[in-house]
């Protein structure tokens, strides 16, 4: 958006005669008074255009994002069963309960584990796969497709499929028994010590394709000349990857990590499909989102559930803002365009 005050100062700066010499922009030094009327009508046109183009998106954003957030904050201050209009105002009572609830501490820990393990497990593996697939190897496109397919399949299908295979009397245990590894048979989903690792396995399998595709795209954008120059200077393959590829892949990796962090914080569907509405906390795989549904919808405590939603929102927003401020800033700094140029 333009701002009339800024315009004036700009015009004032331009008027000295020295500018015509230094910038060579004689054409720009025209009397401001002559320009203004034209600009004004143009500005209205521009404003109108902006309103028309962004209007629908803004309406939808307000109606389906901002309004629900506001409503959740409102309901979060009430003890409310979800029937009729809330009347029992409890202030920050729900929030006090949330932070005192042992089950909530557990879900925070689970989310933290999922967040860290996602980065640690998927990141290096995806980079290695991307480097491998960036070579000219036989069957490269087939391998690419195979790695990317799990990402395309819906969460419900993935969850149902894996939960059937990992059942105590399911295919995985059957296979282990048949190939003589019966000792490895275990309760993949019900044993609290193992369940979270099963979940990480499924998450990694599902989302690694996305990371690989991102990294491949990042690799494509690194100029070939750099590798050639390094090779001529006698750098080995590993030196090239370490000193050139990884640093230049940095922005892609940081964006991927951001998406992965947000995804880990909001993880819901896979857990809900595999462990159902009730037993995720028992199996040690509950997340903030399943806690919200369990305590809010299943228990019918809608006021409390809304308060949990607000807490999740604040946690996610805080982490996202911190990450943007300290990690992503150098990547986005040059990418933002100013309003008028």
């Amino acid at each position, binding site marked *: 958006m333009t701002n009339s005050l800024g315009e004036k100062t700009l015009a004032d700066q331009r008027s000295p005669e020295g500018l015509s010499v230094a910038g060579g922009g004689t054409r720009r030094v025209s009397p401001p008074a002559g320009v203004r009327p034209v600009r004004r009508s143009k500005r209205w046109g521009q404003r*109108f255009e902006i309103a028309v183009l962004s209007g629908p998106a803004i309406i939808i954003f307000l*109606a389906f994002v901002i309004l629900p957030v506001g409503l959740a904050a409102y309901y979060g201050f009430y*003890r409310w069963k979800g029937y*009729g209009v809330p009347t029992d105002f409890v202030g920050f009572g729900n929030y006090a309960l949330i932070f005192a609830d042992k089950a909530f501490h557990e879900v925070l820990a689970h989310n933290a584990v999922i967040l860290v393990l996602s980065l640690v497990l998927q990141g290096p593996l995806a980079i290695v796969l991307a480097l491998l697939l960036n070579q000219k190897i036989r069957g490269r496109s087939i391998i690419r497709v195979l790695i990317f397919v799990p990402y395309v399949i819906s969460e419900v299908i993935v969850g149902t499929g894996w939960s059937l295979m990992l059942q105590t009397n399911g295919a995985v245990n059957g296979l282990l028994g048949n190939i003589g590894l019966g000792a490895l048979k275990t309760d993949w989903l019900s044993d609290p010590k193992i369940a979270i690792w099963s979940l990480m396995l499924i998450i990694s399998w599902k989302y690694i394709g996305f990371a690989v595709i991102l990294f491949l795209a990042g690799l494509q954008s690194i100029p070939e000349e750099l590798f050639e120059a390094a090779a001529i200077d006698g750098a080995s393959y590993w030196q090239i990857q370490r000193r050139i590829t990884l640093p230049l892949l940095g922005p892609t990796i940081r964006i991927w990590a951001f998406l992965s962090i947000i995804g880990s914080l909001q993880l819901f569907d896979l857990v809900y499909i595999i462990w159902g509405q*009730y037993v995720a906390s*028992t199996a040690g795989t509950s997340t903030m989102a399943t806690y919200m549904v369990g305590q809010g919808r299943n228990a019918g405590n809608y006021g409390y559930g809304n308060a949990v939603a607000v807490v999740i929102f604040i946690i996610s927003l805080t982490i996202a803002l911190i990450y943007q401020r300290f990690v992503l800033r150098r990547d986005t700094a040059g990418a933002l365009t100013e309003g008028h140029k």
Partner: protein
Amino acid sequence: MMRKLRGAAVLALGLGTVLLATGCSAGGGGSSSDGKVTMTMWQNSTTGPGQAFWKKTVADFEKTHKNITIKVQSIQNEDLDGKLQTALNSGSAPDIFLQRGGGKMKAMVDAGQVLALDDLVSSETKSAVGKGAFSAEQIDGKTYAMPVDVLPEGIYYSKDLFAQAGITDTPKTIDELNEAVDKLKAAGIAPIAVGAKDAWPAAHWFYNFALRACSEKTLNEAAASLKFDDPCWTKAGEDVAALNKTDPFNPGFLTTSAQQGAGSSAGLIANHKAAMELMGAWDPGVIASLTPDKKPLPDLGWFPFPTVAGGKGDPAAIMGGVDGYSCSAKAPKEACGEFLNYIVTQPVQEEYYKAFNAPPVNTAAQAIVTESYLKSVIAAYNDAPYVSQYLDTNYGQNVGNALNTGVVDLLAGKGNASDILTGVKDAAAKG
């Protein structure tokens, strides 16, 4: 250029308004000026004869009531309660819906979302349906749902598997049940199937132990006060823990669901992979839909929950629910009442029994029950000194949810008997 833009703007604004307007207006059926009435109905049979029953019943009803149209929607059982609550709150409730009763019904009544049926129940219906069944659908003397079947709980078992394990008589006491479990294990059969993934099937073990441990008075008082300080509640939890120590449940029960597919607890019974299951009287129907040939399991038997020493509850008391159907507050009153009266008439109730293998609520229709297990269910129900609603229904969604979760935790070795009651207390603070 400008004119085009302006046109687009008007179009976009218009579209936005339409989107918002349609988003906010949704509603159930209603009557139009020409006397025609359209109603929607939600029921929980998604497969087999149960779903066919509702389709046929509605079609027959529409034949004799030309001005009424009913749209039947099948909602998966585990999804029904949540979807129903959302629909009731958003004012787009179905006109007729499955009513679980107890605390859930009370919450709906308090919010003015269901219709009182007292003026609508016909005298024929009143004489055909037992008073006991109606009392389960009443709050402060007013009736809010039409009962359709009685669902007493007990243990369903496979007679073949019992014979295979050398068990000659059904267990009467909890010690005899433990012996049966040992014998089944020795024969390499999973003794008891439980769908703990859905939580409530596991919690029903706690409910039945509580029925034996607590007096009728304690059970009823807890429904009003939602306080569980009586020592009998801890005893019930300890009884569950003691049973769990014998490791009687099917392997991987924590991720076993109750009714979905051959791997569910009902599916395990249907395919002779487990010998027993504690369930309500809807179970034979569910099991029948999961047998390889989709026919009722021929060797299915039933016995009441065993007696437990040292309890204050009557040893013959029984736990059971009543399935009913309610009209939402916005439903067309007369039409809804007429349909509910229709579904408890003798011919429809006989069809109901055939479709669901569950004891019908119409006493005349009960006479045609042939299966031995259903006969014993009805006999035990009629002999019981009192019938308690399922506790999660009785004590409302919040406490029920906490009880269910606590029992599952206990079975999985996370927490003990008193943790169940602590969980209930914590939940009470949240709502």
